[in-house]
């Protein structure tokens, strides 16, 4: 199990600082979830950790700074499940999961029996064996998310990053995917970093939360410390109620305050449908 350490990490796209400086440790085998409003820099931070964008500061896994590693060596430490994956035409599920073996295969080599065995095991673990020969384009959203997890698992990294793993899924599939991530974390001792919009799910699954607001880390801690009505009202500019269930689960409930208005009162600026 590996410790992920971010020290004064900043991302700058040339239009001023997008994220940071962020300093945070993710303990071995722990799950840290990045939360924050749209544009807060969650994806940028995940992309920095996976080496997809240039960044300042330092990201290290078990003391090894990732910036010094070659792409393949870094991809043996950190796997990323992207929010919107590119789904290539004409690839089978097995072909696609096999791409996760790339950092383990010599540059000009071909996959070995070990690589194929790891892919088969990853498909088996995610109950995708029946889908092995299906084309990616024929899968549903939930199935595709499992295939992406299988590809990341086939990378055999100690650190798993997931960018909005539930954003394209319905309620049931959201829970299934997050439970699966948690099981994989425990099964293989993975250290997990995710970004998530659903605060209730984030609080239920992550060990700790990091709240970003316009790139700045504004709150970090256990879910109960970060998911407070005061913090959420301030940074999300949303009216919410935080309810703690008897079992300790924290639910963030939007207070649905429709503003009352006298009947028949409508604007007369010509934008409404013509009678």
């Amino acid at each position, binding site marked *: 199990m590996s410790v992920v350490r971010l020290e004064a990490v900043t991302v700058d796209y040339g239009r001023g600082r997008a994220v940071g400086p962020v300093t945070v440790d993710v303990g071995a085998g722990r799950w840290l979830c990045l939360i924050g409003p749209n544009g807060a820099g969650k994806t940028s931070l995940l992309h920095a950790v996976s080496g997809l964008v240039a960044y300042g500061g330092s990201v290290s896994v078990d003391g090894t700074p990732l910036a010094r590693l070659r792409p393949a060596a870094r991809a*043996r430490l950190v796997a990323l499940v992207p929010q919107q994956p590119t789904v290539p035409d004409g*690839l089978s599920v*097995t072909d696609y999961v096999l791409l*996760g073996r790339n950092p383990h295969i010599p540059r000009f080599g071909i996959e070995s029996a070990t690589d194929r*065995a*790891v892919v088969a*095991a990853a498909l*088996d673990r995610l109950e995708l064996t029946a889908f*092995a020969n299906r084309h990616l384009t024929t899968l549903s959203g939930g199935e595709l998310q499992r295939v992406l997890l299988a590809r990341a698992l086939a990378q055999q990294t100690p650190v798993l990053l997931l960018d909005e793993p539930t954003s394209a899924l319905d309620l049931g599939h959201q829970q299934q995917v997050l439970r699966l991530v948690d099981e994989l974390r425990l099964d293989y001792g993975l250290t997990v970093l995710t970004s998530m919009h659903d605060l209730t799910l984030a609080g239920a699954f992550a060990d700790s939360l990091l709240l970003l607001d316009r790139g700045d880390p504004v709150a970090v801690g256990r879910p109960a410390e970060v998911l407070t009505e005061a913090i959420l009202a301030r940074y999300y500019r949303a009216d919410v109620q935080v309810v703690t269930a008897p079992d300790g689960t924290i639910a963030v409930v939007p207070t649905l305050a429709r503003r009352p208005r006298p009947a028949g009162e409508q604007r007369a600026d010509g934008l409404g449908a013509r009678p």
Partner: protein
Amino acid sequence: MAVAGPRRAAVPTPGGRSGAGPPGGDGTVASRGTGTTGSRWWWVAAAVALAGAFLAGSLVGPAGLPVRGVLLELVGRLPLVHLHSGLSRTDQAILWQIRMPRVVLGGLVGWTLAASGAGYQGVFRNPLADPYLLGAAAGAGLGATLMITYAGRISGWPVDPLPAAAFTGAVVAVLVSYLVATATDRRGGTATVLLAGIAVAAFFTAVQTYVQQQHAEDLRQVYAWILGRLSTAGWHDVVLVLPYVAVSTAVLLAHRRLLDVLSVGDTEAVSLGLDTVRTRVVVVAAATLGTAAVVAVSGLIGFVGIIVPHTVRLVAGARYRRVLPLSMVVGAAFLILADLLARSLAAPDEIPIGVITAFFGAPFFVVVLHRRARR
């Protein structure tokens, strides 16, 4: 919160290639998924097509050589075989000095253009990419036109100057495209490179057209070069292109698996540990080198680089590890047959081979597309 230790370690230890064997991981599922069973038949089909094209190309010609004699002559050249073909000296010369170099060169040109097209389509993740995308054709055209119009009457060149000029033009044009693109966008994004290629190609074509119009007396010769031909092929042409084709083929084949990794886009490919910029530069360089070399001896033969990889992809699957080598074999067969038609259909005149590749290639491609869509 206490984190439990690993409950089971079905997947081998992180970072290690040779961890404990995962249960049920005997590879049967994976090997079925990678389609190794079907691929053998595609190889057989492609090899048969190439052998058939090669035989047809050797047997058919205006000299009307006896079929039996040609076959015996070909077999007799195999190592450890001693046969008397019964061909006269003249017939032997026609076969070995006129037909065979033409067939072999046609094969090499088709092989290289199809492979380069597949390589370009892979690195740019663009189905419309072809070997001429970054200005190779326009550059070669300008180089050849300049040579024909300004230097064609100068004699005493140590080497044939026309292929050298075309080769240089093609390489320079692609190099300029890449430099323009990276100067504009340091990371060399695919869209920037493609647009730079279009701009450079347009510029080179403009200069070429101007020079061509200014020298109407050479128009016919320039035009014949641009349309492409194998009619003057000799063994010296084969020897000239062979080293380039060998290097280009070796590099492209070495990258065939990496092109599959690139198919998930740059961002994900980087997260999978691929150096995308280096991969793209190396593949483009290899494809350009091969294209420039074959274009230098054959002129601009269009359509092969786009139709062959696509046909292969439609029937044999999208993975480059299969598309790339199969395209080479199918491309060679396709161009040998196209050249056969080019020299036979209007004999004793020759139809430009570029006309044949498009005239017969396009409808064939439509049929393949149609069958694919109905599946």
